[in-house]
């Protein structure tokens, strides 16, 4: 089940809002499509991004995929554990496999994101 407290992009990132910060990761669907993740490239804390900008990349054995930020934000923390254990993204994409935390710069932008239900419908359509 896709956790219903998350918002999604069509590029398969998720955003969990907690007060003024947001946590970002990639969806379960995305980690399955990518397969075994072996490397993650993340930004440095303090960097700022606008919606849709690339903030890093994840690499599986077979491919590299860019990461797009769902909403404007300033990076406050990155998941340091992924450096040694990128497979956490495969194992627990909505938990231990989170990527970065940002300070939200414009909460209104979340209106453009998909709910869990909308995202599930979207990935089903994409498959068909």
């Amino acid at each position, binding site marked *: 089940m896709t956790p219903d407290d998350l918002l999604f992009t069509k590029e398969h990132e998720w955003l969990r809002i907690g007060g003024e910060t947001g946590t970002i990761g990639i969806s379960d669907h*995305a980690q399955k499509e990518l397969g*075994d993740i*072996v*490397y993650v490239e993340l930004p440095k804390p303090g960097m700022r991004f606008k919606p849709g900008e690339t903030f890093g*990349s994840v*690499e599986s*054995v077979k491919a*590299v*995929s*860019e990461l797009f930020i769902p909403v404007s934000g300033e990076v406050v923390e990155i998941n340091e554990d992924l450096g040694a254990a990128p497979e956490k993204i495969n194992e627990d994409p909505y938990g231990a496999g989170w990527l970065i935390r940002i300070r939200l710069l414009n909460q209104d932008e979340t209106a453009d994101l998909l709910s869990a239900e909308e995202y599930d419908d979207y990935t089903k359509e994409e498959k068909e």
Partner: protein
Amino acid sequence: MIPFGGWEMPVEYGGIAKEHVAVRTAAGLFDVSHMGELDVRGPEALDLIQHITTNDASKIVDGQAQYSAMAYPHGTVVDDLLVYRHSAEHFLLVVNASNIGKDFEWINSHNRVDATVEDVSEETTLLALQGPQAIHILQPITSVQLRNLDYYHFTRGKIFNVDAIVSRTGYTGEDGFELYFSASESEPVWNGILEAGTAFGLVPAGLGARNTLRLEAKFLLYGNDMDGTTTLLEAGLAWIVNLEKRDFIGRDALLKQKQDGVKRRLVGFEMIGKEIARDHYPVFVHGREAGHVTSGAPSITLKKNIGLAYMPSEQASIGTTFQVSVRSKFSEARIVRTPFYKRTATTDG
């Protein structure tokens, strides 16, 4: 992120890394039926094979296979292939899937001895059973005495009750077998082998693992590591070019290139930084673009990121460092000895 697409074959069944490790430690079963099979028959079939291929097919005996290539007159690669000798009058050529049509036309256009060339790809299934346990999985279900079958040899026999060619060859760097049989028997044989292998740790394996395995063993991939723009000598395939053979297509150009010196060479490298070099990433030497990565991937066995690239010959020696442009950042790489991986155990049986 945008999940990777564009594959149309089974890339993976249970994860590339798991399948890769299974082949190195137990066994994997690959469906590689997309490969092309061209049957060549006629009293002078050997003469045709000798004319179109760069290796010396007169050196193999009935029941033996040889890695070879077909070259254009200027020494670049039409295709790389396996030549199976049934007899001097009957050969089977196994070619790359994407080249079947091109190869068929190429061979026919140089068929000066009126041999019969038949494309039997559609009706042929090819399964590759690879890994140290392959022999133990296959022996109970085949009529062939596998321990008498040497590397790069083949024989006809039964798998279950199905007529097959059993060949001790592969594209993984492990001991193993390639099995050719009628496409109408694909499903029962595939399922039967998987079932027979369960106790030995056999898993179905896809094209993803096939690629990471072959790269570790430095088996070249046509279209990536060599093609119609690279010569066999540049690709490091001099060992399948027999210049002592008097007449074959590409000989003059390859002889001349050997005498004049090869200007660029395909080298194996490992990344010094953590970045992964992927196919087509540009390669820089002293700040100048020198070529591109032809194959690049994480090596699951070595836990390093490895790849192949063409380098100017003067910068192609072991230990030379250069840069790979990874998403417009430079990442250091070092030329290393190949193959990256070589199995330590001698061929079992």
